[in-house]
């Protein structure tokens, strides 16, 4: 893979000899980064700033301790002068996120996603249970095709508007919570549905189709169970009388799915491009030429093609990109690279070896559960990036894309986000919308309500990994 070829560590071949004191010192820095990310809200600091500061610190200290592989980087057989902080960044991941964000943002301007959302609202005929099921399924599909945050924003904002219209704001908390929890389930569906999937999938060499085939059955069952449990816990039932059904149906009939469509031509173009995007991404590993350029190229190319529609005002979309996330990635990849050179990952890897050595049954279960717990209190991206690096370096797991350990990290990193409101960006969006509607929900209140769902999903994932992937 392209990023591996650029890795200065791989150029040097081995981890340089580092004293235990230095390793522990850098380990403390890593803990500092993780804690800072966990306390992001308290610090009132964006992820990119936190990771950036730690990257700057790690680089200068890495140079001070003579850890960094300074000098030319070999690209295509030629030595190229390049700053030491450029090669560690996984540009394929950056290109996928940047390209697909651009693509999704512009495609949403076609009115496609709002059209789907309103069509489903009308199909529910205003019945709360049908609405929960349809919104739940929509959340999963949107999370899989778009990204968790965008899916939550679209479905969450529609939920607020439609339940208010139906006079069912007393059920809003339940709806938003279930949707928030389903974003992380939907985020498991494809290789590009969430950042941990991209990082782990890319490191493991899992293709898009393979990822979908493995994750798909789990996502289907987890979605149904979550909806069932949500309907029970939040008492979301069908309407009782014919009169209630008639009134609710009339209320949602007022939604006009075509209102957000500015141009019919662009609407169909956006629809066609979305299907084509999914098709090309799904077959990127086997398509001639595309397989050489990778998914980042596909995402970037599709983003740019869509941008042609807004060529004169392209800067609006550049401004809308999640630069915080992209900056965070760059900083994070640099920090992890320095940690690698400082022997921190090696040290953690040794600790994890104990778990891995428990075997594919106990080992993978423990990794899944501990990943879930870890990603419930801190960002799942550094966790996934770090574990991916460690697993990649393991001689038995690294070359084997079918190893259950990869899937343990994928399931754990995604589902852990459902335990606390800070566990994932999409649940944070759900909580923000909940608070926007002045519904009381504290941190612990969220945990209490979410824990039955998260426990069920994690348990299901453990069973799934053990029975079908072990």
């Amino acid at each position, binding site marked *: 893979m392209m990023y591996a070829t650029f890795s200065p560590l791989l150029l040097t071949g081995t981890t340089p000899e580092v004293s235990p004191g230095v390793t522990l010192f850098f380990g403390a820095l890593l803990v500092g980064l993780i804690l800072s990310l966990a306390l992001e809200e308290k610090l009132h600091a964006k992820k990119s700033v936190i990771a950036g500061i730690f990257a700057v610190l790690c680089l200068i200290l890495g140079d001070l301790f003579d850890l960094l592989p300074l000098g030319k980087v070999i690209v295509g057989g030629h030595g190229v002068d390049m700053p030491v902080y450029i090669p560690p960044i996984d540009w394929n991941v950056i290109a996928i996120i940047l390209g697909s964000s651009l693509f999704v943002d512009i495609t949403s301007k076609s009115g496609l996603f709002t059209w789907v959302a309103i069509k489903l609202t009308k199909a529910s005929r205003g019945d709360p249970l049908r609405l929960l099921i349809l919104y739940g399924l929509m959340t999963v599909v949107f999370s899989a095709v778009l990204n968790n945050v965008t899916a939550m924003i679209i479905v969450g904002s529609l939920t607020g508007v439609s339940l208010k219209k139906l006079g069912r704001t007393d059920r809003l908390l339940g709806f938003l919570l279930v949707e928030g929890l389903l974003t992380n389930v939907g985020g498991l569906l494809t290789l590009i549905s969430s950042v941990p999937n991209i990082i782990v999938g890319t490191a493991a060499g899992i293709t898009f189709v393979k990822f979908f085939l493995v994750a798909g059955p789990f996502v289907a069952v987890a979605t149904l169970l979550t909806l069932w449990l949500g309907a029970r816990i939040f008492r979301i039932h069908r309407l009782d009388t014919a009169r209630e059904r008639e009134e609710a149906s009339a209320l949602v009939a007022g939604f006009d799915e075509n*209102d957000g469509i500015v141009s019919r031509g662009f609407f169909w173009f956006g629809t066609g491009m979305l299907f084509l995007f999914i098709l090309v991404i799904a077959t990127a590993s086997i398509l001639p030429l595309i397989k050489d350029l990778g998914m980042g190229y596909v995402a970037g190319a599709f983003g740019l093609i869509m941008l042609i529609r807004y060529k004169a005002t392209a800067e609006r979309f550049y401004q809308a990109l999640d630069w915080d996330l992209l900056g965070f990635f760059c900083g994070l990849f640099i920090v992890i690279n320095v940690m690698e050179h400082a022997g921190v990952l090696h040290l953690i890897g040794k600790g994890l070896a104990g778990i891995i050595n428990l075997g594919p049954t106990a080992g993978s279960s423990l990794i899944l559960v501990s990943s879930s717990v870890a990603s419930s209190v801190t960002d799942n991206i550094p966790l996934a990036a770090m574990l991916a690096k460690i697993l990649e370096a393991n001689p038995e797991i690294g070359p084997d894309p079918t190893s259950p350990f990869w899937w343990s990290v994928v399931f754990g990193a995604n589902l852990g986000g459902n335990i606390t409101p800070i566990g994932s960006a999409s649940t944070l969006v759900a909580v923000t919308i909940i608070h926007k509607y002045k519904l009381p929900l504290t941190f612990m209140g969220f945990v209490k309500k979410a824990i039955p769902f998260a426990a069920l999903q994690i348990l299901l994932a453990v069973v799934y990994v053990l029975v079908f992937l072990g």
Partner: protein
Amino acid sequence: MTRVDQFESVFRAADKERFSYRRIEIQKILVVTDLDASEAAPFLERVRGYLAVLGDDALWKPAFREAFQTVGDLLDLVEKEAPDLICTYRNLRSHAWKWPYSLGVHLDVLTQETRVPIMVFPHPGLESASGRTPEDTRTVMGLTDHLAGDDRLVNHAARFTRKDGTLILAHVEDQAVFDRTMDTISKVPSIDTDTAREDILRQLLKEPEDYIESCRHTLKEQNLQLTTRAVVTVGHHIREYKRLVEDHDVDLLVMNTKDKDQMAMHGLAYPLAVEIRSIPLYLL
């Protein structure tokens, strides 16, 4: 969280007011005049001819000079008769009709005290001078500054539009209010003034346009055999409405008079009712 707001706006905009048709039943009509029976006869005849759209089955109940003296008497009369419609004119029991500055105390109170719609005709004295009451209700204009969702206004206006007639649904945004809002927005650095002006105005006008489209569609489905036309614009309220009435040769102007926030007549309705004196007005 601006993207949540963005999508909420999209969904709120997609949530449109849909017109729901309901046939307005008018069985009993109370005609209130301050003339005696013989003097009132031509007026009564003109009113019946003008309201031919109501058909022959309606019960006409005239109330002449002796039927009431005070406002209280008139309210008692209305309560006793319980009509579906009151037909009358301005400045009952007063000569103030010669000066176009008021409706008269009887009408002032009646519009606010009773739920019964009132049709205000040109004063018989004015009519003898200008001979203006139209022959029938060929062109009816339902008029408001907030049309979207006002099913009652549209249903009443449609009821009085004769077969093959034209129903004009007019919505006029107040230019002065809009300018004042935009003036404030222009002083807020975080809002792009030009974009805000364009977007706000478009959305302000889109809502009544969409609603009128819903009215047109539903009335057509009901096979009422009338043509529905839309007038959605921005302008100075009174001036714009007077212009619209003249330009469209309106035979009946339908408007709301009740304002839930105040006891006096709706802010827009009163000056219109005072100033537009040459055609019948239907006050809801």
